[in-house]
């Protein structure tokens, strides 16, 4: 990471972001109390994820997390599922490269019992060998099934090329060979690595008071070892510096799924909010430049969007469209033109003023439920955001100048360093698509069902 990339040092944020408990070896706790509904939402988040999966063991962290609900001390997998449903609760889990989150929604009257159940699933999973075998075979079926989803195929290959050689380019769910090779010992070691008290942040939203939430949080982690895992830092991804095309060949496609993009930015970058504003103009709303040119003027694609998400490090800036096969090449050419014009000519003062009004006023919907509010605070902790990123978001948006927005675009967005991922029928449109992207340094054609 270069010097100009960092404007807010994450080390300053620690004290301000936690409501309770020291940051050393104890979970950090966040609470948004609301009596509006008899509902409590709990998120137990771990500051580590699939990036720590050993080489050739892709999918390990996700399998370990799924195994948590497949049996714990005194309860079989079936008994666990029966108990969750009978309590009027839902428990789910997400695994990303850098974060694991267990999430529960529960009717208030069952809160205590759900907390005890979550504590048990985290601290005392049985990782039964028979259940593990079942899950691995189930995962194999899901990986095969995912080939039916064209958007998911486009995304998988897009990320593989944008983040080539980086943790963000790996498959969090694993491949069939990597998943089938996992053992009970792998899963136990993975659990021991992640589930340590110092690795955890807990958020409560809804019908629970702050003092009670603190007590429940202690119960959630009481049986976990009081340690922090060895940090497994994720490097900042590097740009590859060339145009690359991956064509995912699938028969009988009347439509294509197209993603274009490269490594984006992170809220720690001094120009992130400026780029966020510029991206909003380019492809962030229903009246954006992309949407008008591609959908409104030509009717080529039902949707046309640009996104600038973030993780612990910079994630991918991406443009997404899904035109009919007959329009795919022309649509890609148009997207490249739009991208070039945005980069070279920038946005106008009028557009900037519009984007500011949109983002500032719609901010009300980023914070209209206790769950959204508490997750903003949790995100600061999990993704090493500047401490005031959400609290001062509106001020930061208002402060961006036209020069800053256009300079951020020129610095972060390139029409040369670009990955183009297309799902379609190669025999019908492959050549036209490749011709629509001049200066390609690399072209890959992969079968949709290739592992």
């Amino acid at each position: 990471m270069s010097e100009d990339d960092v404007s807010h040092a994450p080390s300053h944020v620690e004290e301000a972001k936690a409501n309770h408990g020291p940051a050393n070896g104890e979970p950090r706790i966040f609470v948004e109390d609301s009596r509006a509904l008899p509902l409590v939402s709990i998120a137990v988040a771990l500051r580590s994820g699939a990036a720590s999966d050993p080489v050739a063991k892709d999918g390990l962290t996700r399998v370990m997390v799924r195994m948590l609900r497949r049996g714990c001390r005194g309860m079989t997998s079936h008994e666990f599922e029966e108990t969750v449903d009978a309590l009027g609760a839902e428990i789910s889990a997400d695994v990303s490269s850098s974060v694991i989150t267990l999430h529960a929604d529960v009717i208030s009257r069952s809160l205590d019992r759900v907390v005890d159940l979550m504590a048990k699933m985290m601290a005392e999973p049985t990782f039964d060998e028979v259940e593990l075998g079942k899950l691995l075979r189930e995962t194999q079926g899901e990986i095969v099934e995912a080939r039916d989803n064209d958007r998911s195929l486009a995304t998988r290959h897009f990320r593989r090329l944008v983040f080539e050689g980086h943790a963000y380019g790996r498959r969090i769910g694993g491949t069939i060979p990597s998943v089938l090779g996992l053992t009970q010992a792998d899963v136990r070691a993975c659990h021991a690595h992640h589930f340590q008290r110092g690795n955890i942040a807990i958020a409560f939203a809804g019908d629970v008071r702050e003092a009670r939430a603190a007590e429940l949080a202690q119960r959630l982690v009481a049986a976990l070892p009081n340690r922090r895992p060895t940090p497994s830092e994720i490097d900042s991804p590097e740009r590859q510096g060339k145009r690359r095309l991956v064509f995912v060949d699938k028969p009988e496609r009347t439509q294509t799924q197209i993603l274009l993009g490269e490594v984006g930015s992170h809220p720690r970058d001094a120009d992130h909010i400026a780029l966020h504003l510029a991206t909003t103009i380019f492809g962030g709303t229903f009246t954006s430049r992309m949407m008008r040119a591609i959908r409104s003027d030509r009717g080529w694609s039902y949707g046309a969007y640009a996104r600038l998400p973030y993780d612990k490090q910079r994630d991918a800036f991406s443009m997404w469209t899904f035109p009919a096969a007959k329009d795919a090449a022309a649509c890609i050419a148009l997207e490249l033109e739009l991208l070039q014009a945005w980069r070279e000519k920038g946005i106008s003062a009028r557009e900037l003023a519009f984007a500011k009004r949109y983002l500032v006023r719609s901010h009300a919907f980023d914070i209209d439920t206790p769950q959204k509010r508490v997750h903003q605070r949790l995100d600061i902790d999990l993704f090493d955001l500047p401490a005031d990123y959400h609290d001062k978001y509106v001020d930061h948006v208002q402060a961006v100048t036209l020069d800053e927005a256009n300079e951020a675009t020129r610095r972060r967005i390139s029409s040369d360093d670009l990955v183009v991922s297309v799902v379609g029928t190669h025999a019908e449109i492959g050549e036209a698509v490749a011709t629509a992207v001049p200066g390609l340094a690399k072209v890959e054609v992969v079968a949709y069902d290739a592992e």
Partner: protein
Amino acid sequence: MTQTVPTTKENDRASQKRAELLGQLNANQPPGARLEHEGSIPLGPAMLVQRYRLGNGLTLLTSIDASAPVVSYHTWFAVGSRHEKLGKTGLAHLFEHLMFNETENHPAGSFDRTLEEAGAESNAATWVDWTFYHESIPKDRVGLVIELEAERMAKLVLREPQVTSEKEVVANERRYRVDDDVEGAVSELLYKTAYTAHAYSWPTIGWMADIEGFTTEDCALFYRTYYAPNNATVVVVGDFKEKDLLAKIQKAYGRLESAEIPVEDVKPEPPQAEARRLRVKKPTATDKIAIAYHGPAFGDVDHVPLTMLCEVLFSGRSSRAHRALVQDEEIATELRGWVSTFRDPGLFEIYATARPGKTSAELLVALDREIAKVIAEPVTLAELDKVKAKVELALVQSLETAGGKAEQIGFYHTVLGDPGGAFSRLDAYRRTTRSDLLRVARRYLTNERRTIIEVHPEASSDERG
């Protein structure tokens, strides 16, 4: 929850205050703009919905929820794909797209731009029985939404270039949701096969040939026929002042004229006398199966127990079919069941995907075995209680935002005529017994009433060479 239901004394005071307010608002107004309060309807134990009607027939449902400084504004029209004719399928949905275009006082593109500039989130949806448009907006901008929605209810401008472009967008939406999506294509085929007479047989998005064939005049006729205040319900939930809101609604909508809504040319579906079965090939890796039994209408007394039976069989990892087919026998990867929430009798749908190497025939045998069990024996008390807990959680989750509340109110009002219907339904779930589930299993889950679509893979890329 967000409000405390008032006592009788408070109710009397509120009624008197409301009567005085309406007296002021209605003074010197033409008949079409006169507002009438039709009642206060409980929405669960702690919320109230106020129902008003304008003289021109517009229904207005309001509920104050000051938990966030936002307002959700929904406009529900009692028109969906069931009101179309063969050869013109998909018109209700295409029209939903066109409603975001030019009006007499706002050029093309300005509707969305103006709302975005105000910080609003807006969208729309069309299904078999209804079409609804929704905006969520910071509370200080609600007047803007009222003005824009009233304008497009009566003053939409339809021009050839926009209609042509929007037809292309909808064709692309169809490719996305149906033509290139195995499950979407199978669902379409399932309804087409299960219904032979009723309008539920065609897809809401329409057949591709019909989408391509629409003219501007088709669209204009549809607009004049169905988009009128007496065919619409406005639902407003959020942080607003009732007095201000009513005055603005009256001003914006009071001038609109009602229309003569045509009598619906309903063709009831004749009873299905024998099973229907189709086999299709798709570019997919595994076998799949879709099954549909003819079921009851959403308002039918049997709909609640049949929905609960569906939950027992298919909802989540603890359900019977998931446990049997996914966990124990390992023949399925994915499994779902759903009972249509339609105004007329719908379907009890099942969709399952086979594990690699397993077949749709194996899925059918296993599913039939699970269905035979619920026909032979009552479900357990624990299963019944579990479903009751699950539906309660789902209802509470749906009420977290102003938009969620508005959708519940609008949906139940449009389909059942009861804005508080979500909670009446929760009461019905709580009253339901194991006998009710046994009764509906035996009544509806019979082989002659069902349609089966089996999907087999075409050759893989390896096999194609």
